[in-house]
């Protein structure tokens, strides 16, 4: 059977089980958009290619399946660079297809030509420039394999126009031949035994769970392991929901804006059981002062993470799910002796928990609204299985702090790269992947203005997301730093609460728009938003500019210098 390259690409995507593509057509990718008309794959037409990339990320984070985006060459490819970098930092499986000028004119500075594989080389797990139509099925298969196995990540297929119009005899590769790509999934038995012996001896152990636990689908194993040993768990920004926040073993988020108990538990620990985490500077603070008395067990599927920042006492390369299952099996055999008594450790942890919860002025009844109150109320009124997306900044930290995450894949945010404007497109992608779940985006006014044109996409494609803007009229996190570290010299951070008019913006884009200024109206507005399911909703919450995110470990300081506010 002869197919054109374009037909072969679409057919290959279908065979990979792709159900949705986020994209925007243009010159070089035009031939591929033609057979798409006959395909079962849903295409979501975005308004900007960055939106397509973040939507694919939101889709992938909500479903655990790879997100797919397709854009044209040149400026479209460069517009999707930010989502690629974002997905690379947060290990999100993405397959991005970029159009390219005809192979015959590559290198001639043709119209809308950009060196996409060159530009994206350092922010993708791998990328391919297709030079022969015959390679299409093989490369698509390889691309999905690389994106989703090992440590997941984004990949790019650069697809020249004459490859799309060329022909090939159709086939589907039976196997994948990548001699240089063989992720280790099974932990070394000797290392696992060494880890278990440390785990049983430890008197102040903490499980430091990172995003790898969620990407590696190891949440059930994590909870079982924590319950079996009674060891407390901290969940990093990327791991929120890996163990339910309501679980008594969950201490919540560590790091720069983590809670006192989680931060200090790591500082005082004698053993860190690090699962799919990477000792990010936002967690460790000053590395030399991080968890100074702790031995470290480090489990990661990416060997390069072991010893990158902190040298582990027991390094284990492997799939976190398999390794934790091995831990449980090893503990079940019971030949390793008794576990140390954790009661004194828990007594200490409980005392911190009681003494230092997250706090803000809950008694406030007058405008402006406390942003934390909005997050808490949204959380309280959210239907079960609600997915929460956020942008980057103060609102992101409040979301992570005051929302109770009860399961994995319900918290969608940009952790490593910290991409402002992430929330709205990511929420749209999540809703496409999980249409039965309510999807809220908590956004800042600064973030909102970066990508809010995608609300048009949401309306026209009937993707009814809900957006809560915590509008404090500032680039809030920058303002916080200028207040605390630059002697209140505010430089270029004021945004105005009324420009743009967010209600009109929402309405112009086919959404329901609301403005809420009084704390007493918060609940009714959220109830109204929750009841609307036929179009997107945007609520402009006027929040208190002076609120800062606490606790806070000042940048470059030891976690012991935590400021409670």
């Amino acid at each position, binding site marked *: 059977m002869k197919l054109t390259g374009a037909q072969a690409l679409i057919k290959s995507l279908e065979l990979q089980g792709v159900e949705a593509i986020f994209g925007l057509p243009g010159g070089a990718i035009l031939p591929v958009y033609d057979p798409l008309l006959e395909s079962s794959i849903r295409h979501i037409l975005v308004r900007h290619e960055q939106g397509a990339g973040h939507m694919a990320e939101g889709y992938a984070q909500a479903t655990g399946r790879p997100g797919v985006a397709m854009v044209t060459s040149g400026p479209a490819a460069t517009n999707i660079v930010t989502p690629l970098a974002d997905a690379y930092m947060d290990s999100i499986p993405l397959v991005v297809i970029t159009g390219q000028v005809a192979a015959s004119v590559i290198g001639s500075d043709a119209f809308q030509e950009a060196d996409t*594989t*060159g530009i994206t080389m350092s922010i993708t*797990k*791998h990328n391919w420039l297709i030079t022969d139509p015959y390679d299409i099925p093989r490369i698509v298969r390889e691309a999905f394999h*690389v994106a989703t196995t090992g440590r997941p990540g984004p990949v790019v297929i650069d697809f020249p126009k004459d490859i799309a119009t060329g022909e090939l005899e159709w086939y589907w590769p039976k196997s994948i031949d990548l001699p*240089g790509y063989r992720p280790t999934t099974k932990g070394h038995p000797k290392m696992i035994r060494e880890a278990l012996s440390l785990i049983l001896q430890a008197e102040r152990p903490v499980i430091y769970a990172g995003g790898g636990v969620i990407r590696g689908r190891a949440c059930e194993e994590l909870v079982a392991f924590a319950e079996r040993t009674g060891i407390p768990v901290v969940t990093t920004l990327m791991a929120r929901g890996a163990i339910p926040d309501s679980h008594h073993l969950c201490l919540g988020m560590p790091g720069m804006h983590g809670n006192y108990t989680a931060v200090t538990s790591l500082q005082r620990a004698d053993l860190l059981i690090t699962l799919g985490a990477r000792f990010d500077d936002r967690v460790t603070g000053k590395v030399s002062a991080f968890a100074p008395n702790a031995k470290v067990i480090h489990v990661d599927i990416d*060997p*390069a993470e*072991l010893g990158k920042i902190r040298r582990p006492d027991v390094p284990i*390369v492997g799939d976190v799910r398999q390794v934790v299952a091995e831990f449980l099996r090893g503990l079940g055999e019971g030949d390793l002796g008794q576990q140390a008594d954790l009661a004194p450790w828990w007594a200490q942890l409980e005392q911190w928990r009681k003494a230092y919860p997250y706090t803000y002025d809950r008694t406030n009844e007058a405008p402006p609204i406390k942003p934390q109150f909005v997050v808490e109320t949204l959380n309280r009124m959210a239907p079960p299985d609600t997915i929460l997306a956020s942008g980057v900044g103060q609102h992101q930290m409040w979301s992570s702090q005051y929302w109770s995450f009860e399961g994995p894949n319900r918290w969608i945010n940009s952790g490593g790269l910290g991409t402002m404007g992430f929330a709205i497109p990511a929420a749209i992608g999540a809703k496409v992947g999980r249409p039965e779940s309510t999807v809220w985006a908590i956004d800042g006014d600064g973030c909102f203005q970066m990508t809010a044109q995608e609300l048009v996409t949401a309306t026209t494609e009937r993707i009814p997301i809900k957006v809560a803007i915590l509008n404090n009229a500032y680039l809030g996190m920058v303002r916080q730093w200028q207040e605390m570290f630059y002697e209140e010299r505010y430089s270029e951070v004021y945004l105005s609460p009324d420009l743009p008019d967010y209600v009109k913006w929402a309405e112009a884009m086919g959404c329901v728009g609301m403005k809420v200024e009084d704390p007493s109206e918060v609940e009714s507005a959220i109830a109204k938003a929750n009841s609307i399911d036929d179009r997107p909703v945007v609520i402009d919450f006027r929040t208190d500019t002076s609120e800062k995110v606490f606790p806070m470990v000042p940048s470059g300081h030891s976690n012991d210098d935590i400021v409670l506010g």
Partner: protein
Amino acid sequence: MAADSPSSLVPIGGAIRTPKEFRHHILSVVVENKTGVLARVAMLFSRRGYNIFSLAVAPTDDERFSRLTIVVDVDTAPLEQITKQLHKLVNVIRISEIDPSEAVECELLLATVQADAATRAQVIELVNLFDGRIVDVGSSKLTVMVGSSPHNLDNFESLLSEYGISEIQRTGRVALQRLEMPTSKRRQSRGRVS
């Protein structure tokens, strides 16, 4: 390239951590022979702030693969991190780490040097001492070629510079592990990742 002294090196990504002294290690990296692989390796070094001291690329006896001989400066990053990051490149098949003390190394040098009637004989003698060849002859200059260990070439270069070098080009070294001697025990140090 080691033209004069270490301070004249152009550090690739070295702006991040400029080392005080250079300690070199040789990585022999077998990669898939595909377009862009060299760029991936080079970009990885630049992106992570590692220093490449020299680099040689050539096909292997199997046409599907090429071999890169990379001399890295291990003061800019631990060798373990460099090899682990290299292993993450999909096109990298195998990495062997060769300690310079256990390596047979070779490098080629081409130089054009001032050689008038008064000094010509001395230059030729020097080239002969290093088992080199005269590959081009001009009225007042000679172009000479020497293939030897990098250390010998350093010596040759400084001796030759007395006469006035007008152009010089070195290839970067290639290396293979020294063969096992019946008496000594060779340390196995492969670029293995846990």
